[in-house]
């Protein structure tokens, strides 16, 4: 299967009164056609900004400072807005968290959905309306014809999310970027939404970037995983391999933090998440890492392939595997 989206050395900074925040510090990612890739990280890891970075929609004070995002032979970060507009939505769909604030509060959702469908190629108003109803059915919204006239604030969180999924998938995009699609939803609804996404992308043969804080979601739905810390990918592997042999100390701690009861009360990693305005030199985990060595404070480790398809960014682990 060929590579659909290839990200190289993406760097995004925030210029504010507190200084320069380095949110994304050189990320290499690629997703193949029809592959579902999970990206996991805590707050401050940069995952929230990656989604908008991929489609070149980073708003000030954020700024994409370098990198390339190759999609079908074109660098999305250097394409003019006109051609980007044809790709966004139509070929690359986006789902964000908090659907209610992503939809225009003054316009009924049916019209918003139809607008999106028309923007993606369907000229005829009636055909667009029909397609809108079809999509609402597809995402499991009861009574779609009535729902067309609802306003976003009248919808529950779960329904609003389904509407957004309908919008994102209405044109059979080749890639879906799902940025924390279930944050803020009830746990039962979360499962439903994720299953829905999984089913649909499978049906539409779309590739997916699933960005989340929740390892469980990735374990259940993704084929490969990338772990983010301080704006860098610190481990990347197929999902099964990852959960069986988590190699990076941060990944280990992350998995352990999901484990229940017996580990309670123990601080897994001392310290707190990194401050993007003031990142430590060398490996960003060095102030907290149980395996820290002098070299970790001086040099940034590169991504090393410790076993086939399994990449880790750690001096110590890299040495061990050699």
């Amino acid at each position: 299967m060929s590579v659909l989206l290839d990200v190289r050395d993406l760097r995004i900074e925030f210029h504010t009164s507190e200084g320069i925040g380095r949110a994304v510090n050189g990320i290499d990612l690629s997703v193949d056609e029809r592959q579902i890739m999970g990206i996991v990280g805590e707050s401050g890891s940069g995952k929230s900004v990656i989604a908008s970075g991929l489609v070149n929609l980073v708003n000030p004070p954020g700024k994409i400072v370098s990198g390339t995002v190759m999609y079908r032979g074109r660098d999305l970060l250097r394409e003019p807005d006109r051609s980007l507009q044809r790709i966004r939505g139509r070929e690359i769909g986006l789902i964000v968290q908090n659907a209610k604030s992503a939809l225009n509060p003054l316009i009924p959702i049916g019209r918003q959905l139809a607008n999106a469908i028309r923007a993606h190629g369907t000229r005829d108003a009636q055909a667009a309306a029909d397609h809108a109803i079809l999509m609402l059915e597809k995402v499991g919204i009861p009574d779609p014809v009535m729902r067309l006239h609802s306003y976003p604030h009248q919808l529950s969180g779960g329904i609003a999310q389904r509407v957004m999924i309908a919008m994102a998938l209405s044109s059979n995009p080749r890639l879906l970027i799902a940025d924390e699609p279930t944050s803020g939803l009830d746990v039962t609804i979360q499962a439903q939404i994720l299953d829905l996404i999984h089913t649909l992308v499978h049906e539409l043969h779309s590739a997916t970037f699933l960005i989340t804080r929740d390892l469980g979601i990735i374990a259940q739905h993704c084929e490969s995983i990338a772990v983010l810390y301080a704006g860098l990918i610190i481990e990347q592997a197929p999902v099964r391999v990852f959960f069986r042999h988590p190699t990076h100390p941060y990944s280990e701690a992350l998995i352990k933090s999901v484990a229940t009861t017996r580990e309670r009360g123990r601080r897994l990693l001392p310290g707190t998440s990194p401050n993007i305005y003031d990142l430590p030199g060398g490996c960003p985990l060095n102030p907290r890492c149980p395996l820290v060595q002098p070299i970790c404070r001086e040099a940034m480790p590169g991504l090393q392939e410790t076993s086939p398809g399994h990449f880790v960014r750690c001096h110590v682990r890299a040495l061990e595997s050699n």
Partner: protein
Amino acid sequence: MRARSYVFRRLILLIPQVLGVTTVVFILVRLLPGDPAYLIAGSLATQDVINSIREHLGLNRPIWEQYLIYLGNVARGDLGRSWLTSSQVLEDVLRRLPATLELITLALILAFCIALPLGMMTALRPRGIADRVASGYGMLAVAMPDFWWALILVFVLFGKFQIVPAPIGRIDIALSPPPHVTGMYVVDSLLDGDWRRLQSSVAHLMLPAFTLAFVYAGPILKMTRATMSQALLGNFIMYARASGLPRSVVTRYALRNALLPVITMTGITYGYLIGGAVLIEQIFAWGGLGQYAVQAITSSDYMAVSGVVLATTVFSLLVYLAMDLLYLAVDPRIRY
């Protein structure tokens, strides 16, 4: 439906508001210097005449009785008699209202037509030349005293270049006003099909309206720019762009959301102008409410003062009500 109860509540609210305003006006007017009976009677009157006028005006009654009488009168539409003009205050006000309305309505429409497109354009193209010019204009217009600007414009456009007629009233001195339908000369001339009067009244209206528009477009421009740029950075705009919606649709989305505070501000400006145009009215001898108010205040014509302040405040309240209702119509979040 929530909307209906909202409208109802809002209308009901008007009553205590008007009541409150009436009370404040009553208190205010009590404080005006000068004995009204003395002023009405004239300086040659005897004490008896003055006393009987006091009796007639009810000035000897306890204050709360006077208050109630006043309230009763106002409710009936009786705002008293102006000692200066010797006519009913209500009549005076109604006679002068159209002049002010004509002026401020045109001024506001002009201001809106200048400010809105400019504000939109500059929000869409930040840091361009248009943006700098617009933001400079916005800042300057807010700081500029309208009366001074009027003088400058009169000096330049009338004094030096003679493009506009002399600032002495609403229509050429040689012409009599058109037959009264609304009281607004432009409208009435139009209705009468009288081109000469139409031309003259429009010519006289142009400069004062434009002066007001120039100055008051400033805050509207700043507001439009601010709300529009903020709307453009909003979550749903980012999502709309991410969904591949074309620029025209995205702009429409942003504008719709940005428009509400702008409309509110325009309404507030309109309410302000009914009293705020007084300086311009003075300069152009407009014969509107503002001038009447100044006369009344400086000559302690206390019925006239209370009448004018009451009338203009009620006007503002009605304008604010209209704004709230407009908001209701546009924003579905309040409706449902």
